[in-house]
């Protein structure tokens, strides 16, 4: 899953550094993730994992690192099963 998240960040995150080389707990906002780009990351994650982020998850903290994104996606995919 981490690799999928990295790929999505690479394609949609418009980061100033290589998403493939980022630590899983690195601050994505400090790596250049904007609010605008984070929406595109969300949409790509929703498409890739066939999930929908509920409004309660639409906040900065959920998208601040690869591991926080992973936790959110895991929570949502676990709920689907």
């Amino acid at each position, binding site marked *: 899953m981490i690799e999928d998240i990295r790929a999505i960040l690479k394609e949609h995150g418009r980061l100033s550094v290589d998403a493939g080389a980022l630590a899983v707990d690195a601050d994505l*906002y400090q790596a250049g993730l904007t609010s605008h780009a984070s*929406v595109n990351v969300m*949409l790509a994650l929703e498409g890739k994992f066939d999930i929908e*982020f509920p*409004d309660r998850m*639409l906040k*900065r903290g959920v998208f601040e690192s690869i591991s926080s994104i992973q936790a959110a996606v895991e929570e949502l995919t676990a709920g689907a099963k």
Partner: protein
Amino acid sequence: MTQVAVSPHVAAAIRIAREVAGPVANAVDKDARFPNEALAAMKEARLLSAFVPRELGGFGCGMLELSQMCEALGQHCASAAMVFAMHQIQVACLVRHGKGQPFFEHYLRDLVKNQNLIASVTSEVNVGGEMRNSICSVERQGDRFKLDKDASTISYGAQADDLLVTARRAPESPANDQSLILVSKAEYTLEKTGSWDTLGMRGTCSPPFKLRSTGGVERIMPESFADIASHTMVPFSHILWAACWLGISTSAVSRARAFVRKQARAKPGTTPPSALRLAEVSSMLQMVRANVHDVANECESLMSQPDAGTEVLSSIAFALKMNNVKVSTSTVLFDIAHRCMLICGIMGYKNDSPFSIGMHMRNALSAALMVSNDRIFATNANMLLVLKED
């Protein structure tokens, strides 16, 4: 608003608006000069530290009281109201994000004593109005920093005592990784690089400046500007600006009302045709008022929760709501003023009549531009791609 019981601090603002700001509003507008009298009176009444908590010596006013003050000032002098609003937005950032920081708490105690006026330096040449991007950066050297910024506009820059400046956190940081830095007059210089001869809001005196500053690193707020912006700067800006605009609308409608009454008195027994237009504009004003009061109330109750509402304040749904207040009130504001002009006719068109609406219309035009509504709509459009609101 006058029928509702208000706090003594709001009552002080209402008095200053009527007795001090109002009588010189035309002069402030005509000469594009700073509303000195109103600011001096507000300092005298210690209103510049109204939002500072009681434990630091302030009045501990909340969003609701601040918005009532802005509304009252906006009815009499839009420039004074906007200066007051912009200052309070800076104070709110310092109070809410400097909590527990000895330097900032000390600064706020001094603010109560000295009533310093704080200006905002978020705009930057070649970035324009995109507040969440900076070109300039903080350059740390040991326990000191250096910060230079080419600002496209600084409202009351020449009159301010201190500045709250956005900049990239470090020279290597990306454009949106920003810090907020408080710089003090003794440690900065401003070089005015342009003029402020505008259609409206002339008394805010907001020309472009080149800022050069230094200071101790304790002046850099510890939280990221991203959080400060979404939790405090944006909600306070949009609500307090909207409250100023509500004041402008209220004033325009009360002139139109006075005009219609005068017509009605001239021909007792018949309702003048303009009364219909007044009925229409009165319903529009009520919508603006309900909108502003609703969000001010919501923000105040959120911020007084044990977790200071942080969860909700950082959500997309809340950001959308705050943006909607700004775009909706700023759009309808000009429409209301224009309709009042049509009611008053030539008496509204004349600059020297008691029913003059010209200044209201000119001031109202600024609302859609101070942070462009199109930019906000673009942000909202983006957020609505993922927000469900179900």
